[in-house]
């Protein structure tokens, strides 16, 4: 294997591993966002506040 081929494969290998590492971290980031900022809670809070407004109006 020539040095050029070795370097090529090294860059390609590091590049692909780097992209997968980056994307996996992104994946974990999104999971964390979902865990700490879930939609359900937000909606539930909104519904609660809407209910309380309706109650107050009544």
């Amino acid at each position, binding site marked *: 294997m020539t040095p050029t081929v070795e370097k090529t494969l090294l860059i*390609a290998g590091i590049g692909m591993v780097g992209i997968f590492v980056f994307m996996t971290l992104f994946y974990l980031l999104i999971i964390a966002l979902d865990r700490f900022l879930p939609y359900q809670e937000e*909606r539930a809070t909104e519904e609660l506040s809407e209910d309380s407004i309706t109650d107050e109006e009544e």
Partner: protein
Amino acid sequence: MNTLLSLADNLSKFWSYTGFFNAEIGHIVMILIGLVFIYLAIKKEYEPLLLIPIGFGILIGNIPFNEAANLQVGIYEEGSVFNILYQGVVKGWYPPLIFLGIGAMTDFSALIANPKLILIGAAAQFGIFGAYIIALQMGFAPNEAGAIGIIGGADGPTAIFLTSKLAPHLLGAVAISAYSYMALVPVIQPPFMRMLTTPKERVIKMKTPRVVSQTEKIMFPIMGLLMTAFLVPSGLALLGMLFFGNLLKESGVTRRLAETARGPLVDTITILLGLTVGASTQATTFLRVESVKIFAIGALSFVIATCTGILFVKLMNLFLKKGDKINPLVGNAGVSAVPDAARISQTTGLEYDPSNYLLMHAMGPNVAGVIGSAVAAGIMLGFLY
């Protein structure tokens, strides 16, 4: 008599300045190529917003004139109008502005709702590194191979950005190749999608994505920027602008800025980018064996990206529970041709099950592909610049 001689002399001089006098076969061939681009854009509607400026740019760039006369009209003549407009390509500041617009029009909800799809966007980047290896084996220098490899990301602005840094002399061929294959995505991808999937796999119905909260949508570009800046600083120009544009869209308080970014700004830059890239493809630099090789490697890179995306989904399905399986027809969307690749997933899926709508699911890997190709460009830049 003297007047007649003077008139003849002036006419002869005028003739020597005309395009007819200076035309060579290369100019004619390039003009024909420009006309084909315009024809494809108007008649076949292949990426008209890009192919018309590029096609017309090819016409402008290949109008023959007397270069010795210093008319300052050519794109490579310092100080000419086209040369000044071309600086946005040469210095690499058009592509980040396009990314700003892309960010302002992209909805990352599909990705946030089903984050495992982001890995498909990573797998499809094998196209870039596969093409990089092939280009090196075909005799290109490492920096040239990096620029050629990025065609596999199916992202025109990224290809132009990286090539302007690594191999500016290949800019025309790489840009034309990238945009041509992006326009041909509906032709290139479906045969490989059918070849690599079974009839049973093609009708997999994916779970309806969950609803994404506005807070998540706002936090995503901020966290994305911070992660990019710390992990791949060389990708900051593209990804920084992408996430900035997305925050303008999602914040809900900068609607005017978001509308400008995804409307007039991106349109203006697209016009300037297309026109100047087209004009930079002159016969002397474009009609060479290298360009043919670049086109061949570009086609291969698209095929590799499509195949690896689909195969990776099949691999993921081996580990996923029955209800969570992914339809492999969304694997092609790992390339960043947004939203064309996702639309192909949708149309191909509908051929086998008219009630199976894959567009929303395919948008996840599609926008992940935009991020993935920009990260790949950043990595290439880090190694080869």
